[in-house]
């Protein structure tokens, strides 16, 4: 019928343009989804299913994602950004930077998960499948060039993360975390979507490029609607990256989720959320920067201060790391607030350094949680240096790096965003950033002190039993600490990488 109509009157129905799909540019996302599906396929057809198989396949998927991202990196560098699938996705240096970051997260996350799943007795591949799917959402977010696609990526990322948060069937906290994350996450998604609708209403498009062009050449007729939409987008993305005051889920969810899931979430969700945030605000709404810069300024200040002050009073390491990750989000916001390419490069470098620091830290937490993943009180770290000197040393490196001690990537990351802020004359924000690093140093030091305090001697204590550090976890901690020190000493390549990935205005 339709066809007949179309034939009869060609002008009545416009022909459907099937967009040209450039699969090569989408390869990282496709590999991640394909890897997840392959895992599901294998689990249903193969009879002998050793647990290492799932880890191995996930690692292979992560490695393939990494390789394809690096290939894209050189493509993009030589031939410029590519806009694919009817301009819905853009593959530029910025997107590929995040693809590499997500691939790293998948690889390190899989190594973390294998320890945990073995110890807690979950032989299935579900954890890995969810992780890969979530990562694919993150990759989509990083390359989204359309608010709707951004939303799709956000949902793919989040829904898998909700399930991961509740993955431990026998821990009530895990269920609680999943529930909280889901309910609040659903709210924030709704707000985001409403923001998309308002922006569409004000500008007539959801495509980031079109919005940008529209704003550059028009005075938005409905300024209030546009600003309300932008604000809602900020809320939705701010929720994902745990910016105060949209952070209230973070401590509970970080504490309740299985430790490897927390590590993965802290790295991937933050990276993807910031990918969206930086692209939408810095690039798409660059003409509105006079409106959003003050807002981001305030958000950055309260995020930094709330994150570091509340971390000081925590007694649970996962809650403490949750608040510390909130304050890290504040530093990335400093880069955005600078609204310059140096600021974006600073934010990217910060996220790169943060990914390794946070995954390494949660690797230590995973080991220290012991069977049941419940022993996360700070007192568990007392005397770690005398029982596991190497682990304690590596953790010390990661903590000092987060505190911003020189010759670590953590210091350079802070230096980079602060220097961008100073360059943009945001002296107050730069100073607040540095001062909140002093507050933060207090709680990082507290753990270090505990680790180097001789253990309390009561033989009955579970904690005096030998602590098993599986090779996979040791590898994650080692890689994270080595990255932190090595690129703290020779930062030029990574800084160059971040600068190359900076968004073009």
């Amino acid at each position: 019928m339709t066809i007949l109509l179309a034939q009869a009157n060609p002008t009545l129905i416009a022909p459907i343009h099937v967009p040209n799909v450039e699969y090569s540019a989408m390869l990282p996302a496709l590999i991640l989804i394909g890897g997840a599906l392959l895992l599901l396929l294998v689990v249903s057809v193969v009879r002998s299913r050793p647990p290492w198989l799932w880890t191995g396949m996930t690692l292979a998927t992560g490695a393939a994602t990494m390789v394809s991202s690096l290939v894209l990196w050189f493509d993009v560098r030589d031939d410029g950004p590519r806009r694919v699938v009817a301009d819905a996705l853009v593959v530029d240096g910025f997107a590929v930077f995040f693809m590499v970051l997500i691939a790293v997260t998948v690889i390190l996350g899989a190594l973390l998960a294998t320890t945990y799943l073995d110890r807690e007795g979950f032989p299935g591949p579900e954890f890995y499948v969810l992780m890969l799917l979530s990562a694919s959402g993150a990759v989509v977010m990083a390359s989204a060039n359309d608010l709707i696609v951004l939303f799709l990526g956000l949902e793919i990322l989040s829904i898998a993360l909700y399930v991961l948060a509740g993955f431990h069937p026998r821990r009530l906290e895990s269920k609680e975390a999943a529930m909280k994350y889901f309910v609040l996450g659903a709210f924030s998604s709704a707000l985001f979507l409403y923001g998309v609708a308002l922006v569409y209403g004000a500008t007539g498009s959801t495509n980031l490029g079109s919005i940008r062009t529209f704003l550059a050449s028009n005075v938005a007729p409905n300024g209030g609607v546009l600003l309300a939409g932008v604000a809602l987008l900020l809320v939705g993305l701010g929720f994902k990256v745990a910016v105060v005051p949209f952070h209230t889920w973070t401590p509970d969810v970080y504490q309740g989720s299985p430790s490897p899931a927390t590590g993965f979430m802290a790295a991937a969700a933050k990276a993807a959320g910031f990918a969206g945030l930086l692209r939408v605000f810095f690039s798409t709404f660059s003409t509105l920067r006079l409106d959003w810069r003050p807002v981001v300024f305030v958000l950055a200040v309260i995020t930094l201060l709330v994150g570091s002050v509340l971390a000081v009073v925590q007694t649970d390491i996962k809650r403490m790391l949750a608040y510390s990750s909130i304050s890290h989000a504040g530093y990335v916001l400093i880069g955005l607030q600078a609204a310059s390419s140096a600021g974006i490069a600073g934010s990217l470098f910060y996220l790169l350094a943060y990914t390794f620091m946070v995954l390494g830290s949660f690797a230590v937490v995973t080991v220290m949680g012991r069977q049941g993943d419940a022993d996360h009180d700070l007192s568990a770290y007392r005397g770690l240096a005398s029982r596991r000197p190497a682990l304690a040393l590596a953790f010390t490196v990661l903590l000092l790096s987060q505190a911003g001690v020189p010759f670590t990537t953590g210091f350079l990351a802070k230096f980079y965003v602060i220097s961008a802020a100073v360059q943009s004359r945001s002296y107050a924000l730069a100073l607040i950033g540095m001062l909140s690093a002093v507050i933060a140093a207090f709680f990082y030091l507290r753990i270090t002190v505990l680790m180097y305090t001789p253990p309390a001697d009561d033989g009955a204590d579970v904690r005096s039993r030998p602590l098993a550090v599986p090779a996979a976890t040791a590898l994650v901690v080692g890689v994270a600490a080595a990255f932190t020190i090595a690129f703290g000493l020779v930062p030029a390549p990574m800084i160059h990488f971040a600068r190359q990935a900076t968004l073009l205005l």
Partner: protein
Amino acid sequence: MNDLDFPILSAIVLLPAAAAVVVALLPRSRPDVVRLVGFLAALATGVLTVWLAFAFDKGDAGYQFVSQHHWIADLGISWIVGVDGISLFLVVLTGVLFPIALIGPKVHRDVKSYTAWMLVLEAGCLGSFLSLDLFVFFLFFEITLVPMYFIIGGWGYENRVYASVKFFLYTLFGSAFMLVGMLALVFLSAKGRPVTFDFRELAERGALAENTARWVFLAFTAAFAVKIPLFPVHTWLPDAHTEAPTAGSVILAGVLLKLGTYGILRFGVTLFPAAAVDLAPLLLTLATIGIIYGALVATVQKDLKRLVAYSSVAHLGFIVLGTFALTNQGVSGGVLQMVNHGLSTGALFLLVGMIYERRHTRQISELNGLQKSMPVLAAVFTVVMLSSIGLPGLNGFVGEFLVLVGTFITRRWWAVVATAGVILAALYLLWAYQRVFHGTPTGDNVGLPDMTWRERAVMAPLVILIVFLGVYPKPVLDRINPSVEALVSRVEKATDHRQPAVASRRETGDR
């Protein structure tokens, strides 16, 4: 001499750092080997620094032995090291004190980590004194916190954790201001030119507006004031010194505090001469308050080590006083006094440590008549104490005298008040000496063993230097003066500050 092919300064910084890595790889079960390796590395570094002092060209006021490499080219950061008259003897002091601190006091546990941290600390201190790139300076300035934090926290006395965290946070707090100030300077002075952290280039650009320069100067001063420490941000110092192990106190007082006075002179005064002149009254006042207050508080201390710690507050006040007098004598005296204070206070801490090892107390009220059982220790203590008081013929006098003369000719009343501090120093040190060493020993104070040969060997170089610098400071001052004169004339060129003719007589040659 300056065109040495071998990058001696880089070697001086990297040698202890490399040795720290080597020590970290040695087996934990061989503390003797660890100590030997650590000591030899520190000694080799010390020998290099002493050689540096001899090879140094007296006639050259600029930076010598400079070597330069790109590090983070994207951000305009390079590895630049160089030495001039102001930093030379601080480098030598660091090179001399570290082997002494490493071999002197006993280490009660985990020799390996201790030695490694000490070597990292040495690299950090040397790096700070030698860097001519602001970013690299800041890195080294900050990194010294980490080993010191672990040394206080790991090998200190009862209250060590509190003291180490306080030390770390105070200094970090100050540095926060400096980093922002440093970045502001770098970006504001660029004005379209490429961004650079090269200190020499920045000093030449000097393109900040007057008010901006004042703020940035204050930001730098915040960091250095905590480190020095100036009144009222000195409160971390008594805790850190008292709780630190002996070697930690020696290095903290001898070297780390000098990072502050050195920094304020090298970076504060050189980069912002106008702001330094404008704000000199403020800093002079704080320094004078520190001199009097530190001396008064030292007088009433019950703990011998705390007394020495407070005496540092007073002594460092003299250095700041000389610096902001901005005369040739004042600044030279300040630089010399940095070295003197390192020698005499370092030696005092070693001696207090020796007393503690024998008596396991530092309470003055529990010590008496030590002179009877330990005549040699008492004699050495006397010499060191008199040097700290500033007795003519010993090193302390030369420095303090120059500072007071230099201050008197431009800032008379501050000098007058500060001179009272010299008298107070005699009061608290002599009174403490009297209570601890004089009289008839009672209780546990009877029959203590005197200094061992090892302890004598450790103290010998310090005592020799104390006497040598007191009797014949000329070779040292000859190397310090050209750079100081260049600095003061730089300040005079940039501002309407003029030192009286009497101060610059040396230049006109009518001596």
